[in-house]
């Protein structure tokens, strides 16, 4: 097993142990991400409890249809990512590249729709600091809601961009034939990251768009 020897770092007994270490390493990182987004989610909950009417008014100005469409796009990208990992496990490297590219395409569609939403909100005067023209009831609280909306969704979008960069690296490595049924840990570990970003959106979607 020549490929197994090249893929195994010397501090590990075998590939299974190396995989377990990488897997747990990514989970440890994801836990810090849970705390990172968790702080925002809890602050959002505190302010929503305090300014319920204002947050509901703000939520009603978001485009629910685009938010739902983006949820479907991101869930689909999680499916293609899971299928990419599956292809890697089975050693189908060409299929792996295709599913990785499909995942990236869906990620780009998500970011495109998100950008279009931001543009709509800018034209409606809902962007604090840049163009905020809302003068209806609870205006300061609606502004706070929009600040939460932009901070949380843009940080999520930043994670999507990082994910897309990581997927680009994976595609190049897959093209160079670096993955096999015996060694494909980077695909699995970056897959975990991609699914985590999906989970963040799973919570952002109802909190921002639906609870109105």
């Amino acid at each position: 097993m020549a490929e197994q020897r090249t893929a195994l770092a010397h501090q590990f007994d075998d590939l299974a142990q190396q995989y377990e270490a990488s897997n747990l390493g990514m989970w440890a990182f994801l836990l810090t991400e849970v705390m990172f987004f968790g702080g925002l989610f809890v602050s959002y909950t505190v302010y929503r409890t305090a300014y319920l009417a204002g947050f509901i008014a703000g939520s009603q100005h978001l485009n629910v249809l685009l938010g739902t469409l983006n949820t479907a796009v991101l869930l689909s990208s999680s499916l293609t990512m899971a299928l990419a990992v599956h292809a890697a496990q089975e050693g189908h490297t060409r299929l792996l590249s295709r599913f990785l590219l499909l995942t990236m395409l869906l990620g780009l569609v998500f970011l495109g729709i998100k950008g279009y939403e931001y543009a709509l909100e800018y034209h409606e005067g809902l962007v604090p600091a840049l163009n905020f023209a809302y003068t209806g009831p609870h205006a300061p609280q609606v502004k706070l809601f929009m600040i939460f909306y932009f901070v949380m969704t843009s940080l999520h979008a930043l994670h999507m961009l990082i994910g897309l960069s990581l997927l680009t690296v994976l595609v190049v490595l897959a093209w160079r034939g670096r993955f096999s049924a015996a060694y494909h840990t980077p695909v699995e570990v970056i897959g975990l990251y991609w699914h985590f970003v999906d989970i963040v959106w799973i919570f952002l979607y109802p909190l921002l768009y639906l609870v109105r």
Partner: protein
Amino acid sequence: MAAVVPRRIYYRVYVALLGLALLTWGLSYVHLGDPLSAIVALTIAIGKALLVVLFFMHVRYSSWLTWVFVGAGIAWMGHLLILTMSDYLTRATVPGW
């Protein structure tokens, strides 16, 4: 190494996820009122997140140590939310604020 999960399980999970997304979208037009609408929406979100964690992220098929890590994440997130809200929800309101 991670267990190889049959593809049909991924498809089923995907259909369930899309179904739950459509369900929570539809329920948002029912106007259940606060806090029931938030509870329903968040329960569905937790269900979707569990499906992703257990199947797409392979935790269902992973070592006990992975379960400990994931459990720690959920537990600390729970601490953050419950302890913070147990403060804010039980504060007396100051007149004029």
